[in-house]
């Protein structure tokens, strides 16, 4: 169960940091703010999850968990590690990831582990908005003009296969399923695949065919893309100056 919570926390922390990179350079002031506020939400989710690990399961202090681990100890998926790229890339990643987050927390409402149920209840509205925000922009750009549609489609072609890294299984998954903590990545994946397919069809876009959904695995086991290490270095820069400083 610790692995499940840790990977959720790591995903939230890394995507939160990544998307905060839009602060100040968003294509519109409001999108700048939107990405920044949603990043704050993600960091909040990460903090809540590290706290559950710390308070309920004997894990380390949330700040240490976030800022004092080596790359190998992170279990985030490859999807969250990639640089923000252009707005089309970030938007499609946001769309694909938050749909998965939405369904993951929705499934966790049924968890046997109460702290996760409580967290799922608490973040429901926030993630609903994240999904709404992504959907609204996908709808807008998929139906904007020829260029916007083409860009969204090619970003989708690029990001869709990487998004399957979200559902990479961990070694103790069977136990997590048996203890009814979480129904498992396969269940989540199939809900997500159907939901994404429906939305993409509504937008008038096409799901890329014949993708290799296993091409981007490894993150859950500590094998990351080359993008994670520089991100962590930047993220922990201030913390590393004095790890024992009182804030």
């Amino acid at each position, binding site marked *: 169960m610790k692995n499940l919570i840790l990977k959720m926390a790591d995903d939230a922390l890394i995507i939160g940091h990544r998307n905060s990179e839009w602060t100040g350079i968003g294509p519109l002031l*409001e999108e700048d*703010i*939107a990405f920044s*506020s949603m990043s704050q939400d993600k960091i909040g989710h990460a903090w809540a999850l590290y706290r559950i690990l710390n308070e309920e399961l004997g894990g380390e202090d949330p700040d240490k968990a976030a800022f004092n681990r080596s790359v190998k100890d992170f279990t985030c998926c490859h999807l969250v590690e990639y640089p923000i790229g252009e707005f089309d890339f970030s938007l499609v990643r946001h769309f694909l990831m938050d749909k998965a987050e939405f369904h993951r927390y929705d499934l966790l409402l049924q968890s046997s582990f109460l702290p996760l149920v409580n967290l799922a209840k608490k973040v429901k509205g926030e993630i609903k*908005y994240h999904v*709404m*925000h992504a959907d*609204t*922009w996908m*709808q*807008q750009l998929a139906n904007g*003009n020829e260029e916007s549609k083409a860009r969204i489609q090619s970003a989708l072609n690029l990001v869709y296969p990487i998004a399957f890294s979200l559902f990479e299984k961990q070694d103790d998954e069977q136990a997590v399923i048996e203890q009814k903590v979480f129904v498992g990545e396969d269940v989540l994946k199939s809900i997500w695949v159907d939901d994404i397919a429906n939305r993409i069809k509504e937008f008038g876009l096409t799901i890329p065919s014949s993708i290799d959904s296993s091409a981007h695995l490894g993150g859950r086991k500590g094998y990351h893309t080359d993008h994670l290490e520089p991100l962590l270095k930047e993220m922990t820069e201030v913390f590393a100056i004095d790890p024992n400083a009182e804030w």
Partner: protein
Amino acid sequence: MSNESLDPRIRRLDLEHVKNGVQPTNSHWITFEVFHQEKRGRQAIHVGIVHAPSPEIALMFAKEQYARRKSTSNLWVVKSSEVFTFASEDEDIFETTPDKTFREPGFYKVRDRIEAYKNKHS
């Protein structure tokens, strides 16, 4: 469509093509007036404007700008062009309104006292 925006930032532009009544596509977005409702059932209060290409995106922008801190039950966005107003040069129709104290409830309280005084001394 001529530019009848209520937003001074747009009015100030005074662009040639806008004056000619030609609105180039995507050159500027629609201005929406934003109304914030704090609790269900309360009145929605005007809080400002957003520029957006559609009402749906206007709602997103409104949330980001006007519902970041205080509690919110709902937001409304209305195209500024759908808001009907008096012409600003007609402001004089309201000019004497503050003088009409007889329309204020307090006025009658005083009135009663005056009448009472009059009756007493007549």
